[in-house]
């Protein structure tokens, strides 16, 4: 089988740089990391200098993700030799046990770290991940809430909590988590859009209006967010179709919906110059929705 360097005609420096980029982006493209990293480690470890340790860690985690326990163990053993008393390496040992579904042993490792260092956030989060993996969502939520009381600035944890609440259909609490995230990340269009989706799901006129506002906000931050565009169309249409709104609100929302529909048609037209079928499809879909709208107004 051809090596990565042969297939893509790259040298070891490029492979090393690619791994660094993936680390910085926090990408979870584990199969690629394993392919590139395994070759880099086996053929060029001596050239990597001190970088080799962080690469071992990166490749090890990717290997666990791909069920490559052989590779993971190799990396782990190198790290253990180099850093025998490290908590960071102990956490990796725990992660390997998690991958092998030996959760009790993994928990023991994390508890040992926490006894030594109660502020070790990584170990606490791993324990919560174990609960999630075991399907114990309720407990995971409880533990994560406790964690966030202490570490209130942990964005990753707030997002994880919002996901857990969404899975449990507790949309009110999910919205709260997303509000925290939006406050600290006001320019992140994804949080706005997710918040809008949660509000839309909760339903009711007030939530629909909020949802429309946040879909608009997401679009303002990123005018190519298709979910936000569709969301704006749908929320505005629903508000306009509601019997409880005033004529002015109805008129305004029909305007917003029309604008969104126009933007959507344009986006599809640009991308599907030749695909008239898709465009007609979409137009007929919107025509149908508008027709429904007009019927009820």
């Amino acid at each position, binding site marked *: 089988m051809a090596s990565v360097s042969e297939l893509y005609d790259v040298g070891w420096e490029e492979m090393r740089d690619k791994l660094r980029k993936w680390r910085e982006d926090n990408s*979870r493209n584990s199969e690629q990391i394993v392919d590139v990293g395994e070759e880099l480690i086996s053929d060029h470890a001596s050239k990597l200098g001190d970088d080799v340790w962080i690469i071992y860690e990166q490749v090890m985690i990717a290997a666990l993700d791909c069920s490559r326990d052989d590779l993971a163990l190799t990396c782990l053993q190198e790290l253990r030799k180099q850093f025998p008393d490290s908590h960071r390496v102990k956490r990796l040992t725990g992660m390997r046990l998690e991958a092998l579904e030996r959760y009790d042993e993994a928990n023991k490792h994390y508890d040992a770290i926490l006894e030594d260092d109660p502020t070790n956030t990584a170990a606490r989060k791993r324990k919560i991940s174990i609960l999630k*993996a*075991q*399907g114990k969502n309720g407990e995971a939520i409880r533990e994560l809430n406790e964690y966030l009381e202490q570490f209130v600035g942990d964005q990753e944890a707030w997002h994880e909590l919002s996901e857990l609440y*969404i*899975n449990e*259909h507790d949309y009110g609490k999910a919205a709260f988590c997303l509000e925290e995230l939006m406050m600290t990340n006001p320019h992140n269009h994804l949080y706005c859009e*997710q918040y*809008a*989706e*949660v509000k*839309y*799901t909760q*339903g009711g006129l007030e939530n629909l209006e909020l*949802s429309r506002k946040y879909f608009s906000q997401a679009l303002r931050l990123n005018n190519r967010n*298709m*979910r936000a565009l*569709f*969301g704006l169309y*749908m*929320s505005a249409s629903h508000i306009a179709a509601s019997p409880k709104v005033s004529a002015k609100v109805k008129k305004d929302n029909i305007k917003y919906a029309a604008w969104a529909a126009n933007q959507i048609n344009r*986006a*599809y037209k640009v*991308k*599907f110059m030749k695909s008239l*079928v898709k465009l007609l*499809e*979409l137009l*007929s*879909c919107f025509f*149908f*929705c508008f027709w429904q709208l007009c019927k009820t107004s």
Partner: protein
Amino acid sequence: MGEVELSCRAYVKMYLHACLFPRCSVNGLLLSSSSSAGGAVCVTDCVPLLHSHLSLAPITQLALTQVDVWCSQTQQRIVGYYQANACTSDSSPTPCALKIADKIAEQFDGAVLLMLDGSKMSPDYRVPPIVMYERKDSRWTLKDKHTIMLRQWEEIRDVASQMLDSGDHSLLVDFDSHLDDITRDWTNQKLNSKIAELCSPVNGNI
């Protein structure tokens, strides 16, 4: 309730969808292009929908509408719903699965709810890793295994494995991916052709 037959194309796409997003719950719709004859339903195709936030309404509603429109233009109808849970130890239908399946059942009497059992999806699995439910007395109950048909199961399984090994699952586009890049085709015509090539010695009808 009648028999349900799963075609090669429907099964392979569902399988590849679950394999493409192993860390997420995924779902999709089951389609049929033939009118039910004598209560038997033939699932000829499927549309992979989401791999994130399955229980949020807007995108699900949007996807259902778009698939509905496409179906009416291509002489197909939505006959069921499938889901694969992220947590492989639990393959029971989630509340949102039941909700969507209910909606489909409103429009089609013989609708089915299909759960992919992640724990049985290892390379050499002997039986199809699926659990099917049908609607009886307003509740979703397990369907009798003998009424579920997968013609030439071993061949279909091999086609699925072959496509997974050769990385063809990365060609699959679900509705979520389509929204990330609208040039990508959620009807998966390219993938359908590939499956047809591999399946044609196996099945008379795709």
